[in-house]
């Protein structure tokens, strides 16, 4: 493979079609290349439609991941189906890559119980909302599987801001000490809502944190799906070989608001945003595939149509969910609910009924 030298060892595979030559990743067939394209389009379509659905009031507040698709597709593509994914809200739709129905994820954003899936069905953990707190979960799962002799890896996704949290630190350190087969995947987009990376850390790079845990740290262009794939594949190989965790810092830029509720105009440089949007990951990959002569207009169109249909079907199904029953308030809190739950529910029904 040929990775371009880049500032601060930022690994790249995809060139710019001009001065910077394209590289390639060993062992990826044309089918692999097209499948990753399909997945990119799927996530992109999910994200763009979700913003529309939010405007239409069909889903609630939504954390936009426009421009983050390559990080999610490239890394997830390096995993086996048995490997576990621990997403943050920013990767809410990553389950789509394993066949989790769009309706489920849309239901999550609709605040409907149908949005809470069984992690074991997809080896995709619940969406983690409190920043960085799922890093120890991923470490614990990977460690626990290793102790059982199961050859399973885990990957935890989190942002640049998350690296400031004690939970990230304790989880990363524990993963390294137990040599847990886990990949710590940092989406450095370099904003935490309105807080720029410069206010988040004084480190030159987030990958510099890896040495402090005794694990390798890798920096990769987060808008380069193939570079992300390759870096993750190497980390997975290390993990399976018993060499423990790897910290991957995928560098990108958050060109969308933090979430639908956020208005970045107050703090972000809109010109910079425009520039960055030009470098967005899906277009870059399509151009690469076209330069390779792998992607035809028809194929690209078909993939988009398929994704659009999946979203139409998804929102339809999500909206077709029957209203959640009150009894769900008391379900699932405990394996055997305390007696008080039954009387609370009975009282609630009586009061609301009457």
């Amino acid at each position, binding site marked *: 493979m040929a990775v371009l030298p880049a500032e601060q060892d930022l690994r790249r595979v995809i060139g710019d079609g001009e001065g910077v030559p394209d590289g390639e990743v060993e062992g990826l067939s044309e089918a692999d290349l097209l499948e990753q394209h399909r997945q990119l389009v799927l996530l992109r379509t999910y994200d763009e439609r979700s913003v529309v659905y939010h405007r239409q009031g069909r889903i609630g507040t939504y954390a936009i991941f426009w421009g983050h698709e390559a990080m999610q597709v490239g890394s997830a593509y390096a995993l086996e189906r048995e490997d576990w994914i621990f997403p943050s809200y920013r990767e809410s739709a990553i389950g789509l890559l394993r066949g989790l129905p769009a309706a489920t994820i849309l239901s999550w954003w609709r*605040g409907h119980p149908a949005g809470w899936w069984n992690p074991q069905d997809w080896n995709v953990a619940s969406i983690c909302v409190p920043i960085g707190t799922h890093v120890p979960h991923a470490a614990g799962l990977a460690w626990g599987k290793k102790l059982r002799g199961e050859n399973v890896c885990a990957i935890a996704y989190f942002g640049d801001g998350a690296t400031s949290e*004690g939970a990230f630190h304790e989880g990363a350190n524990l993963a390294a000490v137990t040599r847990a087969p886990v990949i710590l995947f940092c989406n450095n987009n370099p904003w935490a*809502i309105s807080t720029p990376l410069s206010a988040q850390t004084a480190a030159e790079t987030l990958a510099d944190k890896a040495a402090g845990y005794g694990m390798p740290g890798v920096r990769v262009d987060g808008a380069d799906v193939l570079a992300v794939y390759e870096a993750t594949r190497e980390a997975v190989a290390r993990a399976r070989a018993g060499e423990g965790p790897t910290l991957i810092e995928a560098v990108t830029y958050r060109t969308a608001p933090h979430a639908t509720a956020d208005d970045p105009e107050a703090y972000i440089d809109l010109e910079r945003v425009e520039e960055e949007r030009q470098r967005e990951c899906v277009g870059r990959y399509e151009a690469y595939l076209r330069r390779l002569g792998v992607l035809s207009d028809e194929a690209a169109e078909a993939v988009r149509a398929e994704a659009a249909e999946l979203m139409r079907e998804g929102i339809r199904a999500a909206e077709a969910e029957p209203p959640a029953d009150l009894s769900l308030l008391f379900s699932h809190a405990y394996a055997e609910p*305390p007696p008080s739950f039954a009387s609370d529910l009975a009282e609630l029904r009586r009061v609301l009924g009457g």
Partner: protein
Amino acid sequence: MAELTLVEAINDGFHVELERDADVMVLGEDVGRAGGVFRATAGLRDRFGPDRCVDTPLAEAGILGSAVGLCMAGWRPVCEMQYDAFSYPCLDQLITHVGRYRWRTGGAMAFPLVVRMPYGGGVRAPELHDDSPEAYYVHTPGVKVAIPSTPADAKGLLAAAIRDPDPVVVLEPKLHYRTMRGEVPEGEHVVPLGQARTVREGDDLTFVAYGSMVPLAEQAADALAGEASVEILDIRTLKPLDEDALLAAAAKTGRVVIVQEAPRTAGYAAELAAILAEKAMLDLRAPVVRVTGYDVTYPYWQIEDAYMPSVERVVDAAHKLLAF
């Protein structure tokens, strides 16, 4: 008097207090450049500079821990926790240091810091943007806790908290940040800690509430109009509690409903009920009833209204007491 929303009143209070006292500084996640995700700190960074309204790293324990050091350096830090459920990482610093450090110094050093956060549900938000954690704070020695229910009190209690020589936790009902407007005194406005507020007088029943449950208690009282006259007490400061006001309001009617949004078990309403069980025995004409959130995780927002104490549930409790 200006007519402001609850969050505008808080922002107004910040501007007044930072102007008044150069030792007051604000720190937290997104409080500076963005002025806070709810705009509670809007304009502070531009007006008072990035050193007095600081966008910190994403680290709640670090924020509160550094605030302890900032106090030792002579500052009066006001820490924002972005949401209720994201304040939990700071509990360790709060319990092991914030509430104890003054004692450690034999009273020689003061820790006049404030921890404030939006709290509570009903806002159709994703998981963990809906908690009512006041009980954790109230149970912690060495800290005071206040929860406003009106724009004027939101400004006045924040000012009192900032001026208080001891650590104060202020929880703000985010449900009413923008939906509630009210008259707010301009300029300096302080609502002393430790004083409850009689929302309305009544003779048959007493509703005791705080924060977002106060307007609910008022609606329930309205619903009972004609049937029963309801006294409503807004606790305002959970610690130190205005115990005299509580006992008086209970004695007046002998029938008390306590409304709390948080899960029932070991919530703050239990403390209020326990005080009545110990000190109002002879005044009570009926059981003390708690109407609270349930002992479960705050639910999916499509059914959150069923989790929250409702007018119906408060009225139902009232009927029970009237029939007792």
